[in-house]
């Protein structure tokens, strides 16, 4: 008759942080920090043209060399980090803002709402990402925020699909029935009951989407449809350096490697977070 004893069941000790997560955090954190501190730590002004220092190979003064206008590549790289990361994050936030409610609604209501939203997503998916970007940017004057918007738009379908599939399983849980049994509003059920449980896989997916967004954004900038000169967006830097690839390869290689490193870092972060947040892994741990 008396209840189970009051002593808390000892919680299993926290699993050690996966190596990927550590490495990912270190790489991404460093790049982010450098980008944020760029105005203070950049060794040279990033946009001052100096004809005397054109095409200098990497040396003690200019660690990564200079470009065709004599600007310091390292300083430009540091300033560009903000633009690339900012663009990737903004694009992903945009696709989350649209995709998550879409997926929640589709998975919860089912029926024709589901059909309509998912067919819409299919249509979006059928358009090649670059094409869609071109479409948006070709008709209006290009700007970096528009690139972010276009890229975010392209990545709505995968986010919406994931949100939908998570919602489909959660909608069958009995706590949703319990919420209905006390006449909760639909928005309460969607955003207060379902969404908190859908976050972990969505966060993991979103962090991986950031890398795709950075790459696609850079590709659009490379095509001249994103940031405009003299901006130091990495994609734009590579695009401008393309014609001097034979004479001064460092101008293109530096932003290329930087982007590579950033993408690897964020990918590791996402994979690590998946391992940490995966509800199935968690359930298994909880049972042990």
């Amino acid at each position, binding site marked *: *008759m008396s209840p*189970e*004893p*009051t002593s808390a069941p000892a919680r299993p*000790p926290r699993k050690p942080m996966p190596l990927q997560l550590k490495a990912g955090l270190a790489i991404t954190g460093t790049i982010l920090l450098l980008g944020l501190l760029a105005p203070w730590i950049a060794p040279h002004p990033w946009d001052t043209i100096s004809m005397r220092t054109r095409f200098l190979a990497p040396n003690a003064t200019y660690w990564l060399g200079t470009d065709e206008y004599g600007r310091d590549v390292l300083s430009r790289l540091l300033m560009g980090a903000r633009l690339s990361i900012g663009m990737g994050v903004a694009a992903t936030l945009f696709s989350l803002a649209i995709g998550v409610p879409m997926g929640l609604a589709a998975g919860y209501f089912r029926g024709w709402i589901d059909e309509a939203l998912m067919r819409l997503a299919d249509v979006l998916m059928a358009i090649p990402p670059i094409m869609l970007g071109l479409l948006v940017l070709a008709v209006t004057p290009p700007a970096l925020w528009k690139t972010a918007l276009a890229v975010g738009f392209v990545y709505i379908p995968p986010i919406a699909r994931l949100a939908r599939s998570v919602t489909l399983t959660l909608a069958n849980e009995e706590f949703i*029935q*319990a919420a209905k049994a*006390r*006449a909760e509003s639909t928005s309460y059920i969607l955003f207060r009951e379902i969404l908190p449980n859908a976050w972990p896989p969505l966060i993991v997916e979103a962090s991986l989407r950031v890398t795709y967004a950075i790459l696609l954004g850079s590709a659009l900038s490379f095509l001249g449809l994103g940031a405009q000169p003299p901006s130091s967006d990495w994609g734009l830097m590579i695009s401008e350096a393309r014609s001097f690839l034979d004479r001064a390869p460092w101008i293109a290689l530096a932003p290329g490697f930087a982007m590579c490193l950033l993408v690897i870092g964020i990918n590791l972060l996402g994979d690590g977070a998946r391992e940490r947040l995966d509800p199935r892994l968690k359930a298994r741990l909880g049972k042990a």
Partner: protein
Amino acid sequence: MLAIDDLTVRYRTAGGEIEALSSVSLKARKGSTLALVGESGSGKSTIALAAMGLLPAEAMVPSGRILFDGADILTMNAEARRQLRGSRIGLVFQDPFSVLNPSLRIGDQVGEGLVHHRGYTPERAFARAIELLDEVGIVKPEAVAKAYPHELSGGMRQRALIAGALASEPELLILDEPTTALDVTIEAQILDLLEDLRVRRGLTMVFISHNLGVVRRIADEVAVLYAGQIVEQGATEEVLQRPVHPYTKGLLAAIPRIGRRMGRLAAIPGRLPDLRNPPTGCRFAPRCPFATPDSTNPQRLLAVGDRMVRCSSAAALRDTSWPVQEEAVVAATADRSASEPVVEVEDLTKSFVLSRGALRWEGWRPVRDAVSITPVDAISLTVAPGEVVGLVGESGSGKTTLGRTILRLIEADSGLIRIAGETVSDKPQSALEAMRRTAQIVFQNPDSSLNPRKTIRELLGRPIARFGLSPKADIPKRVDELLDLVRLPAHYADRYAHQMSGGEKQRVGIARALATQPNFIVCDEPVSALDVSVQAAIVNLLADLRDRLGVAYLFISHDISVVAHLADRVAVMHHGKMVEIGPAEQIMNAPSHPYTIKLLSAVPRVDGPALARREVVAADGLA
């Protein structure tokens, strides 16, 4: 035949090493049935896996031998073990729905072992499979052998699995909860089949179950396991009728008996010890009402009469029975006949379209004949204030659908629902505010019914805030009151669901339903997912709450003995129809509908005259 000697098994887990079995010794005599009984976490399935040589990679066996016909299974190499498994030992698992490969024909799966171990050609194996299916009592074995698993009912699949285990003519059959997933009438058939096979083939069986009634029906000898140790072992009837070890006594006292109404069930307080660091003394001592200072010393299995008991005061406790608490609460039985019923349901019907059927032509028009089922078929029912109406029936009988349709969680096709004098069946969902407060629901699965991302305080506070039942500042106080009502300590308010045991979660589920101070609660299989000892505590709690608060329940369960214990009236459902309703005593002692009679006779009981084996005989056909 099978001898387990001093077997200890540990599992490596993220939280540390767990000792699942501690020096267990067992012997299954040739041609007899040995049952292993215990609640979850007792280690009974680990024994089965070890005996099959199927322990997972995380398992370590620091000591012990498992001798099958004199050869040690643990020291054999993998290939020898595989040979043994396929040919001389057969295994039947719990869930017949997931064990069969859905894309292979039944006959191929039954005969598979013959192809691998006996070198049969597939054709010969298939022919032999048909004979085996015939032997396990399947009516049209040729047709069934060509069928795929999804075409068969649960009972048929379990028969097919038994046929598969028998294919290689094993001498030993290990059955891990073979009837747990099945309805009682099917369960009775499978038990009869197993008994029949044992006699006919001279099989030795090791039967693992949590259900003492089932064990009584099939086993010659029973070993009761608690926290990885055998606590009592002996002849089945002896152990079940005159248990000696306190745990066995408690387990038996916690089972509700049909036809013997008691005020409250005996519950075993507390929970399993932490197996990462098991106590050196008696593992049951913290929960034992008979514990003595000697209980902290290591306990050995002692012979008491013909059986073995792991308790130093066993001889003294022989004739003492488990203490049953006297009824503390005085039943506030109002005059029910005079007051208006809290729930009235008339002619309620709900049907689902399963598929739209095949396309055919009617003259020039294409039509489809929709295939539909009617899980709630013209049901009429009333529940008086403070009354418990039990709803029993087998899976698919429509019990759950009825409960949810009454609460308008599923929309009815037709019929009238009145709750607390208000007709709710014709109102839109948005106008159900009052009804939602008056009528609540408790769910079967406590893992799924509590949002894992919310603390208990949030879970219990939300209904209060939602209906504005008390000012915001008073909500924490009200949450504490609710926790107290379901006998959970106040500091549980800051926990998440996964930090509690199954029984505690179910208490929170009940507290949440009570938060709106309802007059009526639909209890949808509230104890089915719980162990027997925890189940008794929850049933008692529900009975107390009814007496103290005057709440009425519609108590849905497939377990007739629990319903018989708690309910004032019992309704029996079969294929969506209510076949019988009446006072609980009358239904249990003098059922009138043939289906009720069949259902009651199939229930495995731990008391009453031992059933002549093979009492219920019925053949099930293709589903």
